[in-house]
């Protein structure tokens, strides 16, 4: 499954990456699984996406939880808790 991943704010800076296209293995079906899978990259990835750290997620521009399903061609995003207003 091919998806696009966007990173915002401090997460984008820490990872040094704004956007990437990724071919995700078939067994990665949810946002929680995707987060765990990205952590396997190690280094800044392991640290910034570690369990327990407040990371917010979106699938196709809707806030998502760890159970949210990935769909083909999805635009998913990882970002820190929001601070607008």
């Amino acid at each position, binding site marked *: 499954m091919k998806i696009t991943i966007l990173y915002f*704010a401090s997460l984008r800076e820490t990872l040094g990456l704004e956007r990437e296209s990724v071919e995700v293995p078939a067994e990665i079906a949810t946002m929680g699984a995707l987060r765990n899978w990205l952590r396997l990259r190690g280094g800044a990835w392991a640290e910034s996406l570690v369990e327990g750290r407040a990371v917010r997620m979106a699938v196709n521009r809707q*806030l998502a939880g760890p159970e949210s399903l990935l769909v083909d061609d999805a635009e998913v995003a990882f*970002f820190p808790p929001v601070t*607008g*207003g």
Partner: protein
Amino acid sequence: MGQATSLVRVQHEDFDLTREVQALRQGDAGVGAVAVFVGTVRDVNEGSGVSTLTLEHYPGMTESALEDIAAQAHQRWRLNGTLIIHRYGELQPCDQIVLVAVTSAHRGDAFEACEFIMDFLKTRAPFWKKEQTPAGTRWVDARRADDEAAARWDESSPNTDRVRSSPAG
């Protein structure tokens, strides 16, 4: 009242409060109350001087998140109109950041919906603030108080809210 208005704008440019409120309630004689919130840039946060505030957002998702919040407000209260304007990019102390304006027949609905929209915006709209301080730049941390403020609105169901009598005003 006629068709309820729901407007959302995400822009770098400043906004004119008087003009925006005028446009929102123009020609609607059913409006008896206008509640407005304007958020502005402070020059001190967490004990440090702030010289520049940079707001990043998620284009595309930001607009739909704000539209969704406004739609929820229209469901929960009897509103004639809502307007949300949020700025992004580099801002200076004293600059305006955000405008929420709500019109309704009576003040109760307008006051509550305005606060609801701000509470949800603070916790659900994808904006992030970065501050320039004498010690360098830093991302603003989310505040627990904002989560608690948003959670208050979950306690009462939308249906209960809708039939609650509002004081005339």
